[in-house]
């Protein structure tokens, strides 16, 4: 603590450097991503998601389901004919609970985690503009959701290719397309799933600005998603369905038809976009007006 010169040297250097040289942008976002992706818990979640397709693949390989019964997730029987379908099946299985859970964990941590550690007050006095903080947090959650989706899809494709025959893909509409096109369709489906998770991320971000307890924020976000899914299943509430976030999630089957049917997916994207806008606006209103006493 003794060297006063160190300080003045730094001061000079910082001063010289601050004149002229161009600064790379996105430093804070990269720092945020590093924080999210070096956290053991978040990596463990990705590992669990990666294990899903492998488990499903092995289960299907071992039990070789009887196609005639037509039970289970819609793509299950197709897997034995083409390994690529393992990727779709995995996403069908992961989308209702596991993927939103992963996003809820990261989003719950985002603002509430900083508040509970006390680092929020230091970020804000750095200063990080409150709007900028929200944007960076939101983008990092969305990217984590996209990464989680990519992990599920990639593990699905890899495991499928390892355990089952791959080749030309027979789409749900009965048309057969080359394997490369099948991969492209997988990418489209993953993109749609990632968009669905972006809406979950917006919900999670709002919840995270409302509390200083990250675990509470995570649970609340999962509860919101699950309640919406349950409402979606209640026949008496059919009139609500079109406005429920998870209603069109599994519409991604439409992306596996030829030509691609856009009704369900289009409506889904529209509703999800609406959720993103509304929840981000609420999060912004909350974040920019709240007293930070943590």
């Amino acid at each position, binding site marked *: 603590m003794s060297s006063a010169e160190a300080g003045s040297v730094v001061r000079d250097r*910082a*001063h010289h450097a601050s004149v002229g040289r161009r600064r790379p942008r996105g430093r804070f976002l990269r720092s945020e991503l590093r924080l999210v992706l070096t956290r053991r818990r978040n990596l463990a979640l990705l590992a669990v998601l990666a294990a899903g397709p492998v488990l499903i693949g092995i289960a299907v390989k071992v039990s070789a389901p009887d196609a005639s019964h037509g039970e289970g997730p819609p793509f299950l029987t197709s897997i034995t004919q083409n390994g690529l379908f393992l990727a779709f099946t995995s996403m069908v299985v992961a989308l209702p609970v596991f993927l939103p859970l992963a996003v809820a964990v990261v989003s719950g941590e985002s603002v509430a985690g900083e508040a509970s*550690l006390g*680092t929020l*007050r*230091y970020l804000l*006095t*750095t*200063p990080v503009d409150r709007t900028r903080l929200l944007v960076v947090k939101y983008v990092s959650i969305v990217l984590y959701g996209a990464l989680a989706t990519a992990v599920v899809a990639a593990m699905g494709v890899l495991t499928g290719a390892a355990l089952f025959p791959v080749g030309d893909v027979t789409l749900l509409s009965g048309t057969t397309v080359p394997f490369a096109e099948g991969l492209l369709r997988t990418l489209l489906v993953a993109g749609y799933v990632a968009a669905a998770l972006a809406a979950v991320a917006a919900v999670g971000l709002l919840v995270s600005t409302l509390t200083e307890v990250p675990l509470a924020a995570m649970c609340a976000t999962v509860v919101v998603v699950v309640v919406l899914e349950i409402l979606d299943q209640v026949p008496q509430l059919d009139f609500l369905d079109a406005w429920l976030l998870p209603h069109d999630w599994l519409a991604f089957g439409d992306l596996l038809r030829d030509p691609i049917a856009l009704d369900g997916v289009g409506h889904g994207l529209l509703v999800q976009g609406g959720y993103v806008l509304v929840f981000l606006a609420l999060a912004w209103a909350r974040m920019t007006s709240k007293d*930070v006493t943590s």
Partner: protein
Amino acid sequence: MSTTDLGAATSVAAPSAGLGPAVATTGLTKRFPGGQVAVNGIDLHVPTGAVYGFLGPNGSGKTTTIRMLLGLVAPTGGSVALLGEPMPRAASSVLPRVGALVEGPAFHPYLSGHDNLRRADDADRSTDPHTAEARIAAALERVGLSAAAGKRYRAYSLGMRQRLGLAVALLRPRELMVLDEPTNGLDPQGTREVRHLVRDLAADGTTVVVSSHLLSEVEQMCTHVGVMSAGQLVAQGPLEQVRGASTTRVQVDAADAAVAARVLTGMGLSAVAPTPTGVVADLGDAVPEEVLAALVAAGAGVRQYVLHRPTLEDLFVTLTGEGFDVER
């Protein structure tokens, strides 16, 4: 004597004459939603270049005030100007020039000290990433944490955490440092080092606001003080002025207490009171040497003659009350 003291005190503030105050608030008020008034219309005035000791018992509103200065909490009344610019409107241009330690350090437990500093620097738009490593190394060096830079924050002792908090404030040059309880958890050596650090900063022209409970420490490093009690600023100004040279007490142990008392009263000293061994009185404007000479000349039989200058602690207790009772 008292006049010279005041003169010295004002000369400390003199360099700030050309500049505006580093911190100025007018009628700053915070009423929390529950109706509790944490801060009640205070007018802080921290001259540029001062080392300002911000004192007050727990719960007196110091931290809420500091949070309002830094834009963390929105005032419900009054205004804040930091380095001459209005807060929180000018936060993005003012806060990079302000280093802050608010209510203890806070870092990510799983990151190392170095990585935590890196994150703090990455969040700061005003710094140059090309010099980040050099600045981080220098800041760690300055707070004596170089050897522990790679250790996870969770393994740090309380003192190390406090030092890391200071290191963040040292990542770039600052014009104003707001240090809330900077010596909390530090051992005597650490406390000394913080004192030196504050002195170095002040010598470089940085204005420093230090809140502390350790009054002897504030006395050693501050040029100005402000005292909070129950949400109000009950005293503020240059240290000597606030401490008030006029209330110096003189204690005379004498063989003939009655003669001593008569002499003191005769010289215009007030509040003359007997003690088991003699008398005490307020010195007031009297010159202590002349008082002693008069006592000896009058044959009071002086055995001991002591001047009690009030300490900051005496003042503090006078202003904010005694005991453990939380005010509200």
